[in-house]
C-alpha cells in the first residue's frame, strides 16, 4: 500500500512503489483526468503538480510523490492560477479533441503561478513539452496571455 495526498485527500493505493503516479491515479484511484500519451515524458499529457511544480506523472514513481501535495486537473480550478487559466481556455475555446488539454492546463497553471506576466519565450519554455496534435498552440499561447492580462501587440 502506498499513501498519497491527492487534491487534499489522503488516498491509499495497492501498487508497488515503482509504479508511476500516472497509473496509480488512472487505474487504481480511477482519476482519469490525467492522461496517458507517451509514457516517456515526451508529450506532457500526464502533467500534474507535485508541491506546485509541474511534473510528468508517467515517469514519476508514486513513492517520489509520497508525503507531498499532488494536484491534478480535477482540482486545479481551486487554485487562483488554475481558475484563471480554465476561464481563459473557455473564453478562447482552446480545446479541440481535448485529450492533451489536461496536461496543457496543468503546465500553463504552473507557469502562471510562478510567473504572472510570462513572455512569449517564457510560454515556449513552459509549454514546449506539451504536444497537441489538434494544433491548438496559437490559442494556448493567447489564452495564457489572456489569463495573465498580457496584451498581445502583434496580430
Amino acid at each position, binding site marked *: 500500500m502506498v499513501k498519497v495526498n491527492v487534491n487534499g485527500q489522503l488516498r491509499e493505493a495497492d501498487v508497488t512503489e515503482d509504479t508511476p503516479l500516472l497509473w496509480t491515479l488512472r487505474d487504481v484511484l480511477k482519476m*482519469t483526468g490525467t492522461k496517458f500519451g507517451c509514457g516517456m515524458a515526451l508529450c506532457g499529457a500526464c502533467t500534474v503538480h507535485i508541491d506546485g511544480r509541474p511534473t510528468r506523472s508517467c515517469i514519476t514513481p508514486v513513492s517520489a510523490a509520497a508525503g507531498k501535495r499532488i494536484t491534478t486537473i480535477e482540482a486545479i480550478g481551486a487554485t487562483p492560477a488554475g481558475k484563471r487559466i480554465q476561464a481563459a481556455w473557455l473564453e478562447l475555446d482552446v480545446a479541440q479533441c481535448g485529450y492533451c488539454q489536461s496536461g496543457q492546463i496543468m503546465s500553463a497553471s504552473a507557469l502562471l503561478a510562478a510567473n504572472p506576466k510570462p513572455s512569449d519565450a517564457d510560454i515556449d519554455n513552459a509549454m514546449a513539452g506539451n504536444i*497537441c*496534435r489538434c494544433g491548438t498552440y496559437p*490559442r494556448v499561447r493567447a489564452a495564457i496571455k489572456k489569463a495573465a492580462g498580457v496584451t498581445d501587440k502583434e496580430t
Partner: protein
Amino acid sequence: MNSQTLVSPSRREFLVASSAIGGGLLLGFGVPAHAQVRDTLTSGAPFAPDAFLRIDRTGKVTFVSPMIEMGQGTYTSLPMLLAEELEVDVNKVAIEHAPPGEPYVNPLIGVQMTGASTAIRAMYVPLRRAGATARVMLVTAAAERWRVNPSTCRAQDGAVVHAPTGRKLGYGALVDAAAKLPVPENVPLKEPGEFRLVGKAHRRLDAAGKVNGRATYGIDVRLQEMKFAVVAQSPTFGGKLVSVDEAKAKSVPGVSQIVRLEDAFAIVASHTWAAKQGLAAAAPQWDAGPNAKLSTADVVGALRAASERTGAVARNDGDAAAAIAGAARRVEAVYEQPYLAHATMEPMNCTVHLTKEGCDVWLGTQIPGITQTAVSKVTGLKREQVRLHNHLLGGGFGRRLDFDGTVRAVQIAQHVQGPVQVIWTREEDIQHDMYRPYYYDRISAGLDAQGRPVGWTHRIAGSSIVERYNPGWIKGGVDPDAVESSVNHPYDVGAVRVEWVRQETPGISTSFWRGVGITRGTFVVESFVDELASAAKADPLAYRLTLLDKSPRAKNVLQIAAERSGWGKPLPAGQGRGIALCIGFGSFVAQVLQVTVDKDGAVKTTHVWCVVDCGLQVNPDTIRAQMESGIIFGLSAALHGEITIKDGRVEQTNFGDYRVLRINEAPKIAVTLVKSPEAPGGVGEPGTACVMPALVNAVFAATGKRIRKLPVVANIGA
C-alpha cells in the same frame, strides 16, 4: 472518401415520429433512400432505427449525434443547425453519441462514418429539416390544445406562444400530443438571412469537460472488476509469435494472465503499469516472417518501377503526350511522400466485456456500424448482441476509421473473464499504425513560348487504401481517392492525362489520413505549378491567376491571401513566402506561408495567412480553429513526418523520433473567412492539404532549393 464518390445530399429524407418510451417525442430519419455505394459490411440486417432528436416531458432536448466529436467542433455546429429551426437554446441541448444504426448513416458516404470533412455538408439540410419539422408539430399540438389557428402561434426558446392571448406552453407539455400527429412534409426552412444562430461564432458546447478532466474518452472507461491489458504485436510485418516467458511475466506483481495469439500477445493485470512490466519481462521470441528483410528502399524501388509502367487512365483530355512533345519547353519532376503515422494523442485502446449473451465494447470510433459488424464476425454473435458504446475521440485524423484495434481487443477479451481494457503503448501505436501510403508521382508539362502550359501528364504510384477499405468505390481500375486533386485540379493546363498505378507492399496496411487524397494530390499539383511558374520566370501568384479563369472562387482566395500577407514585398535573405491553393470538400482555401531558412538549413515557419471560402458558415470560430489545426497538423508532417522501415519493422517508436510540431515551432496564423452564399463546404481537412505545398514553395522562395521529397527537414540537405 472523396468528392467523386460522395452523393448529393438531395436524397429524399423522410422523417419518422413516434412516442418515446416513457413519454415524449422521438423524431428520426427513416432509412435513407440513397442508392449510392454502401458499406458491404453493414448491408445486412439493419439495426433497429433510433431517433436522433428526443424531447422529453420536461422539455429537455437531446441530440443523438450521427457524427462523432474528435476535435472538429461537430458537437457545437450540428446542434446549432437543429436548434436554429427547433427554436431552442442550443446551450441546453444535450448531446449523445449515436449507437451503431441505419438512421445514423452518413448520407454523403453511405456508411455510418465521421470523416472526409462531411459532417456539415451531410447534415446542413437534414438537421435543419428535423428541427423545423419537430417545431411545426409542436406548434400544431399547441394550436389544437388552444383551438386556435396554428398561424397565430409561434415557437420561441423552447415554447409555443399564442401571441394574441399571451398563452404559452413549453415543449415538454406538448410532446405527447405532438408525437401523435402526422409528420408534415416539406416544412419550409429559414433563409440564411433569417438565421439567429447559424453563421455567428458560438462557443464550443463540449469545452467545459475538456478543461476540468471530466470529458470521457474510450481510454477513461472504468468498470467494476475491470482488468488492464497491454498488447504487443509482431514487430515485423507479418511475423508470428514463437514463445513468451510466461513464468517471468507472471512473477510481476499484479499480472494475472498472459494471452497468446498467433501474431501478438497481451499481458493482463490489475493496472496498466503491471501489464507493461509483465510485457517487458515476457522476453517474446518472434518468427520474423516473410518480410523480415523489408526496408524503405525496397518500397521506394518498387514504386519507382511501378511509376515506369502505364497505369489505369484516370483522366485523358486531348493528346497530352503530343502537346508536350511539341511544346517549346518541357518540365518534369518526381515527387515522393513518405509513410505517415496518425499519432493521435489518445493511443489506441478498447475496452471489451464478452459473455455468452453478448459483447459490450467501449471505444472511440469514426465508424460505429462497421465496427459493430466486425466484432460480430469475430465473436460469432449477432450484430444486435454487440453493444457498442462510443466516446469522445482523443484525435481521429483517419486512424479511427479502422477497426483493427477493436478486433485485437476482442481477440484478447475472448480469453479473459470479465471486462478488460486493452491499451497500446505509444510505441505500439506508432509501430502498428495503418499508415498513410508512400506515394511516388511522376509529372511533366509542356510550356509554350510564353511559359503557359499546353500539356500535362501525371502518373501516381502507390498503395490503394480504397481497394482494402471498400473495393466498390474503385471505378475503371482507378482509386478515386488516390487521384483526387490530381484529376480535378482547377488549373487550365491544356491537354491532360492522369494515370494511376497500384503498387502494394506485402504486410503493410495503409489507411486514410487527414485530408485523404486531396492532401496527397494537392502537394504534388501545387508544388509543380510553382515549378512551372519558376520555369516561366513568373511570379507564383500571377502565374496561378492566369490559369484560373474558370474558377473565380479560387482566384478570390488567392488574391486575398496575397493582400493579407504582403505578397511581393521584399524579404531579407533567407526568408521566403510560398503560396498554395486547395480546392476540396466543397471549400476553397489559399495560404501564404513565410519561412526563415538559416545557413545550416534549419527551417522555421514564422507566419501563415489562410483564406477560406467554405460557402455558408455555420460556426465561424470552428472554421478558424480547423484552419489553425489543419495547418499545424500538415506542418508537422511536411517538416518532420516520416515512417521508415528497416528489417521488416518500423524504425520510429515515440514522439522522440516521430516528431510533431511543438508550440515553439508553431507559426503565427491569421485566418480570413470569405463570406459566400454557396453551399457549405468541409473545413476539417483543406487546411492540412494546403499548407504542405505552401511550405515547400516558401522554402524554394527562400533558398532556391526545390524540395520534391518530404519531409523537408530530412531532405533539405540532400
